C-alpha cells in the first residue's frame, strides 16, 4: 500500500495551512483579534499533583491561567478517553499528572497510569496528534515549583503550536 505519497501530499497542504495560522504571536482561532489563548486541561491526582498545584498557590507562584485542572482521586483513574474528549471539546493541550511511581497514595495506581499512557501517548502521536499537545508528569505534593514550571513550559509549547484542529468537534 502506498502509505506515503498521498498522505505526504495532503500533509504538505496541511502544514501550509498550519503555518498560516501558526504565527509567533499565537494568533489562532480568533486570528482577527489576536486574542487566541490555548485551552489546556490538566488531569491531576488528588493526593500528589493536585496538592502540588495547591502548594504552588500557597507559595503564590504564578503560572498561566490557561491550565484548567480536573481533579481525580488517582492518576490511575484517568481514562485515556478523557484525553480524547478534551481534545474533541476544544482543548489545545492535555496534561496528565500523578504521584511519582512508588509514591501512589493507593500504592500502585500510577504504575498502571505509566503503562497505559506510555502506550497511549505513542499512539496519539501515531495517529497524528502533535507530540507536544499531550504530556504526562509526576508531580508530588511538595513539588509546587515543578507544577509551575510544567504549567509554564507546557502552555508555551502549546501556544507555539497554535490552536489544535485534530479531533476538534466544536460548533
Amino acid at each position, binding site marked *: *500500500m502506498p*502509505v*506515503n505519497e*498521498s*498522505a*505526504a501530499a*495532503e*500533509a504538505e*497542504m*496541511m*502544514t501550509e495551512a*498550519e503555518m498560516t495560522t501558526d504565527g509567533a504571536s499565537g494568533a489562532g482561532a480568533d486570528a482577527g483579534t489576536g486574542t487566541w489563548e490555548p485551552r489546556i486541561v490538566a488531569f491531576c491526582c488528588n493526593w500528589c499533583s493536585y496538592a502540588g498545584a495547591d502548594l504552588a498557590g500557597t507559595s503564590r507562584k504564578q503560572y498561566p491561567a490557561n491550565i484548567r485542572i480536573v481533579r481525580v482521586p488517582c492518576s490511575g483513574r484517568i481514562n*485515556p*478517553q478523557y484525553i*480524547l*474528549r478534551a*481534545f*474533541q471539546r476544544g482543548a489545545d493541550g492535555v496534561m*496528565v499528572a*500523578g504521584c*511519582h*511511581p*512508588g*509514591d501512589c497514595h493507593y*500504592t*500502585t495506581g500510577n*504504575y*498502571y497510569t*505509566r*503503562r*497505559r*499512557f*506510555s*502506550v*497511549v*501517548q*505513542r*499512539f*496519539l*502521536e*501515531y*495517529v*497524528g*496528534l*502533535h*507530540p507536544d499537545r499531550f*504530556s*504526562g*508528569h*509526576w508531580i508530588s505534593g511538595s513539588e509546587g515549583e515543578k507544577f509551575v514550571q*510544567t504549567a509554564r513550559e507546557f502552555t508555551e509549547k502549546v501556544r507555539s503550536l497554535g490552536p489544535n484542529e*485534530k*479531533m*476538534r*468537534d466544536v460548533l
Partner: protein
Amino acid sequence: MSEAIKTAAPVEGEPMPAELKTAEIPTRRGPAPGDPEFLGALRDCCRSLLAEGHVQRIIAYRETPDSLRPEVAFFASPEETGDLVWDLFCNTNICKYLLDYRTFEGRIGVVVKGCDARGVVQLINDMQIPRDKVEIIGICCPGQIDPAKVESAAGEAWVSRVVAGPDSVEIVTEEGTEMRVPLESVLTDRCLSCRKPNPPVADVVFGEDQKGRISDEVFEQIAELERMSSAERDAFWNRHFERCIRCFACRNVCPACSCTKCVFDQQEPDWLAGERNQANQHFFQITRAVHVSGRCTGCEECDRVCPVGIPLRLMNKKLWKDVKDLFDSPLPGTKLGVRSPLVMWDPKDADSFE
C-alpha cells in the same frame, strides 16, 4: 525517587484459576488440509465428538453454492456434519460466536485456524468462556484465499471453483476455462504476513505445523508512518478515518471486544456521538484500538471485514508492537492464563512521563 513497591496482586496470570495454566498438548493429530483424507477426517472428528456427547454444538463452516464463500454453521447433531467444510475460503473468524454460548449448557467444538484459535484463547483468558467448555479443533492453516482477489483474477468470468495446490491455485470458471495463478497472489493480505498459522492451544490438531509467511510489510508500514511528520500522519489517518461508516463490524468481529454494552453504544455517558465527523471518527477508532490493545490477538479480522478498507491493522499492530517492546509480553491468545499487560506493571517499566 522513592523505593519501588510491589503488591501481591499484579502477578502475571492472576486471577486465573490454576488449572488453566497447565500446558496444552494436543492429544491427537489429523491429516493436513490438502491431504485427500483431510475433510473426511475432520468430518469424522466432528461427527464423533457430537455422537459421543463430548460436545453439544460445533461451530464450523458449511458449503454453499458459492464455493468462494462458505458460511458459518452451527452443528447440533452428528447427522448434520455431512456438509461441514473446511477449505481455503474459511476466512471468517468464528471464535466470537462462542460469546453466544456463554450460558449454553454443554460443550462447544470450534474448528479454528491459528488466528481463530488465538481468539478462542483470548476469550478464555478474558474469562468469557471456560477452557473446559470448548473443544478446540485446530487446523494448521496453510493460508486463506481472498475471494475478491480470485474474482478479480478471473476478470469477467464467474468463478466456479478453485483448486488449491501448495504454491498455486487453479481457478475454474463457470464456462469451464481454467487458469493457474500463484497462491500468494490470491492469499488474503493478513495471511501474507501471518507468522502464527498454528493453533497455540488445541484438543485436536489437523496438519503439521506450518511455517507461516514471514513478511515484515505491516511493521515496515508502521515504521514508515512513525518516520513521518505529525502533520503527515494526521493527513494519513484523516484520509482513512473519513471513510469510516461506523458499521462497527471491526468491533463486532473482534475476539477482544466482548462487552455486552460497548462504550460506543452507551447513551450515558455519551462517549460517541452519531455525527460522522473527524472528531468522532478519531474517538471511535482510537478508543477501539486502545481498548483491545494488550488483548488484540493480531488476527486482523477487523481489517478483513472493514468494508471501506481502513488499515486497522496498522493501528492494532502498532499498539501491539509498543506493548510488546515496552512490557515484553507474549502475543495475546498464544498462552492460556495470561492477562492483558495493561493490567499489570513492573517497577522497571519504561516511563514516558516527565
